[in-house]
């Protein structure tokens, strides 16, 4: 699985997993995985029903992940993208195809702990087959200087289900552009949840698009952003109700502290009188009632705020 000349990088990644409290058992032989460091594939493991093919490209890696029909895995598929230098550029491309009637979970880790002036570009295309269910969790370990541009296109076929969870809360976002588009066929379901904490002069742009094309398709977009200091955050949630009886809900909650500049733009568009879209948004300081109720138990305002934010970000 590991090429001899790449053992050191592999071990360095394992050390970071240990330090950051990430699940090291994802490096087990029973777990389908691709481990990337810089523009090299330093580990690749396939298991029955999962075929991962990787190719090293200029400044990065391209990988095809194919899940056969009727596959249900006991462990997640591990996509680990690391960059262990301070400066540079990395581009990763994932083409993920999940067959029919399968149930899989992806755990994606982006590990850039020493980044000072680093650009990470990720392009993912995910196809979820008929009646399949995919959970994709994305977690990030960033140094102080990461510019991250991530674009994901998901197509969910009839009766399929896609759940995407993006989280960048423990480390600096610095410069983040996150774009996710999900297209749903009939009876398909999608749920996208993004949680981001922006501090200092971080800049965060999130755009999530839900295309409810199929009849009876359903989708939920939810963004939670905590913006501190002088950070700038722009969240655009778009939902398009196109199919008969399609239902979509868009939710954006942003908590602002300091001089942060935050905006949220919900865009709901219906082109079918049987479709239904709703949205919910809030921007502001932490809910006063939540603070007071915790302070009445003896917490200071700062301690209460910390607990509330921790909950919101799922830490």
């Amino acid at each position, binding site marked *: 699985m590991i090429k001899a000349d790449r053992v050191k990088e592999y071990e360095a990644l394992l050390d970071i997993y240990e330090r950051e409290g990430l699940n090291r058992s994802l490096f087990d032989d029973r777990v389908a995985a691709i481990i990337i460091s810089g523009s090299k594939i330093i580990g690749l493991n396939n298991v029955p029903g999962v075929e991962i093919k990787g190719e090293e490209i200029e400044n990065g890696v391209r990988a095809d992940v194919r899940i056969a029909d009727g596959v249900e895995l006991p462990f997640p598929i591990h996509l680990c993208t690391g960059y262990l230098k301070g400066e540079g550029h990395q581009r990763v491309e994932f083409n993920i195809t999940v067959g029919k009637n399968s149930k899989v979970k992806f755990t994606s880790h982006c590990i850039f702990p020493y980044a000072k002036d680093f650009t990470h570009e990720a392009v993912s295309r995910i196809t979820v087959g008929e009646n399949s269910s995919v959970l994709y969790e994305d977690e990030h370990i960033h140094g102080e200087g990461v510019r991250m541009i991530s674009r994901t296109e998901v197509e969910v076929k009839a009766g399929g289900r896609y759940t995407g969870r993006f989280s960048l809360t423990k480390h600096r976002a610095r410069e983040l552009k996150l774009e996710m588009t999900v297209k749903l066929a009939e009876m398909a379901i999608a749920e996208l949840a993004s949680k981001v904490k922006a501090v200092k002069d971080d800049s965060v742009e999130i755009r999530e698009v839900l295309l409810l094309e199929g009849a009876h398709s359903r989708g939920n977009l939810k963004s939670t952003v905590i913006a501190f200091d002088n950070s700038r955050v722009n969240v655009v949630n778009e939902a398009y109700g196109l199919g008969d009886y399609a239902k979509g809900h868009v939710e954006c909650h942003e908590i602002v502290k300091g001089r942060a500049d935050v905006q949220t733009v919900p865009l709901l568009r219906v082109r079918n009188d049987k479709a239904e879209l709703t949205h919910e948004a809030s921007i502001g300081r932490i809910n006063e009632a939540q603070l007071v109720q915790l302070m009445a138990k003896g917490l200071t305002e700062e301690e209460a705020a910390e607990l*509330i934010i*921790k909950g919101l970000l799922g830490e």
Partner: protein
Amino acid sequence: MLCLRNVGYVRDGRRILQGINMTFREGMSYSILGPNGAGKSTIARIIMGELKPTSGQVLFDGSDITELGVTERARLGISMAWQYFTDYEGIRVREYLTLGGKLKVGEDEIREALELVGLPYELYAGRFIDKTLSGGERKRVELASLLLLKPRYAILDEPDSGLDITAGELVEELLDRFKKAGTTVIIITHHEEIAGKTDFAYFLCAGRLVKKGFSREVVDYYRRTCGRCLFVEGSS
């Protein structure tokens, strides 16, 4: 001892409370009874420090605590369960009850507190305090949190509102448990049957104290007079 001395409260030019004098001695239980809009919850929030009175004082063990904030009062031993308990996305019941780990209590104590308020430990300790819990369930969590906190004074604002038919029994059990823990309970209520479960009661109407005394006497007076007086009209 906790006292309100000649407390008044004016909001937007409207007099909400005037000349309120109340005393809460440790070891007893109290209710503040009155119709909607009488100013009961305003008194609760003034005691807790969420609102500052526009006149008068709040005294605790003889010291003036009128200017102290919510946290400082909580640290003196005053706590409160609000009428409308908010939700906390991403925070589990266990985490809330232990204040994110700051309150050192064992799992057995958490279990006991939850089960006393009618929430089976196995089903609730790990649940999120979000919209997946009903208002009544959230309220029970808040009551359990006060049981674990064991404050010297616990203000329960409308503890039965939003709860099902078992609310009366629950209030009795809470009073019993708080008494054993040495907590003086102050219940805010407009239900005479809930007020009747405490030792003493204050009957409040239109921001004024109408009657005080043993709960059964005050409740009896409330039954006979409330809705037939001119206070409400006179207060506006």
